[in-house]
């Protein structure tokens, strides 16, 4: 049954013109703690150089790195990226669509009152080198901004 489903899935992707490359997608994740500390100018902690432009427009004055990861993820497989004790990120590369854009699925789970729930679940297409911010989730101080970017494997 699973094989039949996978075959139908693959056929649907081919019919839609999508491509599932054999090489893994390079996924880059930077989890940022964003908060307001009353600074006159914006402060970016160490390790945020790559995502500075992606978060600088947000309405916070201080940004600190919580965690970062740079991992290859094969298409069709889900990568689990632990952020902190409360949040976990899952990223699944789905296919390459027109113009070389990557279709991915991303979700963040959180522990809430003893249960794990999907805090955020999204499907999107993104240009390699662009950024997807997942934001609005609360930390003990400030809010969590997860910045995701991708680039094709081997490039």
């Amino acid at each position, binding site marked *: 049954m699973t094989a039949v489903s996978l075959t139908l899935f693959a056929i649907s992707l081919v019919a839609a013109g999508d491509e599932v490359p054999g090489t893994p997608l390079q996924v880059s994740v930077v989890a940022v703690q964003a908060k307001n500390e009353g600074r006159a100018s914006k402060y970016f902690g160490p390790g945020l150089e790559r995502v500075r*432009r*992606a978060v600088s*427009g*947000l309405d916070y004055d201080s940004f600190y790195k919580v965690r970062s990861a740079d991992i290859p993820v094969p298409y069709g497989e889900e990568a689990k990226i632990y952020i902190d004790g*409360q949040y976990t990120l899952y990223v699944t590369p789905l296919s390459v669509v027109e*113009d070389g*854009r990557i*279709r991915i699925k991303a979700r963040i789970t*959180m522990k*809430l*009152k003893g249960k794990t*729930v*999907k*805090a*955020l*679940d*999204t*499907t*999107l*297409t*993104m*240009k390699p*080198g*662009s*950024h*997807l*911010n*997942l*934001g*609005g*989730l*609360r930390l003990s101080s400030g809010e969590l*901004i997860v910045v995701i970017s991708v680039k094709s494997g081997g490039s």
Partner: protein
Amino acid sequence: MSTCQYLERVERWFDGEITASQEIEEHLAGCTECTRRLEDLKALRTAIESTKARVEISDAQFPSFMQRIEDEIEPPRRRHVGLWALASALAAALVVAWSLISIVAPGPEPLQAVTIEEASTEIEGATTESVYVNEETTMVWINLPDGDML
């Protein structure tokens, strides 16, 4: 089928197109084919002259006579020059308009770097929204309900 090379000249001489010559007369004296043809033509002319009737048209009849002739003359087809000119002008105008639109009108909206297909949350009372940050960045933002959820 005639074989005599003088036959055409004999016919033309009979019709008065050329004057008689000693050469034709001598030929007729010796050519049976041309002599027979000449006799046929004379017989035909005699027959025509015996049947033709002279029709006289009086001055009073003349206007109606001319009117009937004019009525029978098929009027020349009206040439739709104006219609073709209008169609040509319209086609030219369309080409020019299309060219101007192509030049002036903006092309399709550039695709954003990140396009959100769907976003959802299981947190009760929370909503999600897609926010354009800059040309390289799009954000999916979760609006949590007020109060301490934890």
